[in-house]
């Protein structure tokens, strides 16, 4: 009889540990888990950049809300994004999707974002989008910034707030920008969160 109580109790304890461990942020990972509703995608990207080796040429992060944990939802989400990401590598991690472009190439940012923004799955909505890439900046006559992806010639209009440190035009930079405008029809908008020189 003791054994019947011992083994299930151990099983229950380990089960509880396993269930609870995703809810406890690991060290250094406090901002990494959007599923707990506390970390914006921008903080996620910054935290990951600090703990990784050289980042890829470009990345798109998409934060989702809804059913993202079951295998069928993940499979569908992965397939939808893959179909629009061109040669990007797609990964689904909980309620976050990452599309990575390891080497310089044009990024179908609009296609990737609209695929999830306009999906008809019953319980899935796009919450936040972050775009990160290498390129150069150029100031336009009207004062706005133009961000050209390295080696591709692909150009994005970029809004840069006064508090964002901005290297000189023409220098290699790595831009992390929040992508907006996908809730409405029309062009997407990029707003710089961080501009790093020489990355």
């Amino acid at each position, binding site marked *: 009889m003791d054994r019947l109580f011992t083994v299930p109790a151990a099983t229950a304890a380990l089960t509880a540990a396993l269930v609870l461990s995703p809810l406890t942020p690991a060290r250094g990972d406090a901002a990494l888990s959007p599923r707990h509703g506390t970390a914006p995608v921008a903080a996620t990207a910054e935290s990951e950049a600090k703990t990784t080796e050289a980042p890829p040429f470009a990345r798109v992060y998409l934060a989702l809300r809804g059913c993202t944990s079951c295998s069928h939802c993940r499979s569908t989400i992965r397939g939808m994004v893959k179909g629009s990401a061109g040669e990007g590598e797609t990964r689904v991690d909980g309620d976050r999707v990452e599309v990575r472009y390891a080497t310089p190439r044009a990024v179908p940012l609009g296609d990737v974002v609209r*695929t999830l923004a306009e*999906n008809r799955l019953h319980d899935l909505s796009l919450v936040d989008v972050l775009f990160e890439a290498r390129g150069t900046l150029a100031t336009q006559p009207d004062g706005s910034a133009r961000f050209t992806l390295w080696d591709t010639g692909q150009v994005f209009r970029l809004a840069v707030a006064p508090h964002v440190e901005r290297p000189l035009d023409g220098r290699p930079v790595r831009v992390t920008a929040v992508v907006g405008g996908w809730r409405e029809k029309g062009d997407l908008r990029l707003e710089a969160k961080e501009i790093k020189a020489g990355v």
Partner: protein
Amino acid sequence: MPRTTPIRRVVATALLAALVLLHPVSNARAASPDDESRRLEIHGYGEIHYNNPEGGTMNRQALAMVDVHRLVLGWEYEFTPSLRLEAEVDYEHAAGEIELEEAYIEYDLGATTSLRVGGLIMPIGPLNEFHEPPNYHSVERPYVETYVIPTTWQEVGVGLAGHGANGALGYRAYLVSGLDAAGLDPVKGIREARQHGSEATAEDLAVVGRLEYAARGGVSFGASGYYGGADQGDPALGDVTVGILEADLRLRRGALDLHALAAGVDVSGPVPVTFTPGIGRSMYGLLGEVAFDLLHGRERGRHDRRLWVFGRVERFDTTAKMEATASQRTPEAERTVLTGGLAYHPIQPVAFKADFEHWEDGAEQQLNRFNLGVAFQF
């Protein structure tokens, strides 16, 4: 389902220990977006119930019961961005019963099509694949999708899964091991004929598939089919085949959630199925549900609260048609269930539920049941 032996409990404990030990390491590695080849993601769901009286009986004198009905732990291991393992283990009734829900390799043939090989959840009905408890409003799973479509149902096989139209269209088509007709039951239907991929006889195979489409305006349609042999080469059973057709419709618009489903099962063969008296040659199930979110529109942000009030009517009969020579009918197999209650989601993946069931059967028995439950998904 037989209770687990002590050996199986030890194995289950060891498996959990391995997952716990590996999980922080794997998560740390997976936290690096530049980790190209290894990625372990863990997910799961569970539900705890109070039933008064206990479920599965029409005995009004049955006692109340509480149950850790299920805790399911699943993982996805990404060998490469196009090749992954999907698996889920179901610990039912406080780990008194352990069942493998799925264990398959998925290989992306392209952006929209994948090959799946292994223990596959049958694409029959909307609930069998999407059976996580926050996805339905009631404490217990709908009974049409318990007794007519035997959720959760998985078999070993191979097939394709894919989607189109930006996720609006989805399909799964598999070749799997068939049912075992020796498990057919007048009241439980084909539920006990499932083999679960556990040393399953594969003399008879079956084909199964589902097509679903999400139209604009929150309307979605689905249709499923299954056909295969079920005698598994047992000469005592004769030549038995099982066919299933199912169709469902759902409307989600604003605070409204409407759901309807019809399913039919046919057990046939060139010789009468007389190995067990009272087995239904045909079974059917009908379901209609309406739900309304009382908090719709009041909460905005990442974790919308929801308070669903719902009502559901189900009518199903697992002996709708029997052999003309059958000497024993089973009036209890014809059942009508009315369910109504509330489901509160403080966040979408967690639900606190309370509902009331009214049962009537063909034997003129009636029973009322009160249920409470908490459900979660992560």
